[in-house]
């Protein structure tokens, strides 16, 4: 059997798909600890990535009738994205392992100039499980920090967490080989 189909860039016109309501993962009525996840995406020159498609997938809380656990947001002209979501809880580790992973979401980036999507994670500062999370623990502190969102207080009525993403260069985000 052939290998998986080759990825191709999402290009600059993926907005034809866009439904801005998808940036709110609670849009179907999910109830829980609602937060905003905001961030800014820049390239190797520090230039905002204004045409990115950012996807957020959470295995926690588990999917239900009013919660897909999935959202999609576009970056604006300044490279900013904003999701509304439920704060995730701990996630089981790999099958067969006993350890829990710290609360996190999977972030997937598509954009012009990305032949295949970039995959990373968002963790949350202050979570007790962060110290023993297998992925975080495997990274040196400076690299670890690129995956950990920090609280920014209340904004537009919701506790907001910020995770900026740097595609290349100084402060480059840790991207995953999934």
């Amino acid at each position, binding site marked *: 059997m052939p290998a998986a189909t080759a990825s191709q860039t999402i290009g600059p016109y993926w907005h*034809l798909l866009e439904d801005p309501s998808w940036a709110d993962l609670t849009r179907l009525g999910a109830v829980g600890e609602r937060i905003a996840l905001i961030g800014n995406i820049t390239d190797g020159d520090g230039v905002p990535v204004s045409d990115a498609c950012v996807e957020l997938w959470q295995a926690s809380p588990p999917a239900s009738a009013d919660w897909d656990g999935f959202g999609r947001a576009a970056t604006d002209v300044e490279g900013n994205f904003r999701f509304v979501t439920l704060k995730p809880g701990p996630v089981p580790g790999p099958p067969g392992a006993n350890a829990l*992973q710290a609360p996190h979401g999977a972030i997937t980036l598509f954009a012009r*100039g990305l032949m295949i999507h970039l995959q990373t994670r968002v963790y949350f500062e202050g979570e007790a499980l962060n110290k023993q999370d297998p992925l975080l623990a495997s990274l040196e502190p400076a690299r670890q920090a690129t995956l950990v969102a920090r609280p920014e207080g209340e904004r537009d009525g919701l506790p907001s967490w910020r995770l900026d993403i740097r595609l290349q260069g100084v402060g480059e985000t840790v991207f995953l080989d999934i």
Partner: protein
Amino acid sequence: MNQASDAPFRPYAPGSQPPLDAADYGSTQKRHPISALVRLPGGHTATELTAPRFSPARYPAFADLTAPGGGKALGERIIVAGRVLDEDGRAVPGVMIELWQANAAGRYDHTRDQHDAPCDPHFHGAGRVFSDEDGRYRFITIKPGAYPWRNHHNAWRPNHIHYSLFGSGFAQRLVTQMYFPGDPLLAFDPIFNATPDTAARARLVAGFDLDVTQPEWALGYRFDVVLRGRGATPFEEGRP
């Protein structure tokens, strides 16, 4: 072979995927990470092994891209059909496939597209279909036109339809493009040619198919999409 739904997905086959740093595609230059991608220490977890399940009840299918303008879209009407399979050749049912494309003149219905080609008020260019129990999908559209893209002197994208697919695990997430057979622009396209493996590139090109073609109505093309398989490859399984 472990095919349980919690089995990890196989790594991508060497050469089957394009690099993030594709020298001939200028936009990759400042957008690819320099550091090596990091593997999850324990392998795939629920985050990678599960995925959102999109039901057509909540995300209605939209299989006729010519319909919004009352079927008056300009250009060559075509039918595209195919199957969504995994690397073991098994059908993958219930996959949501999102589609988008330029109109027949090579222009997207998008404010950022400034190509000097006519817009078509009867064609938007976005669709959504789901694979059935046998992994089959089908949609009707207009053959998209080629368009210029400024990557290099006299750069033109070959005719293509953009695809976005969600599988049963988020590690299967795929965004790709379907091309058309016999397109002379394929030879010059840095995006198409970024994938190292020749056979992998060839599989991005749909086949003309007389069985999909509908008499007196529209030409048909066949395009199968393969998502990553779970568990060990047969090759690895055969190792002592």
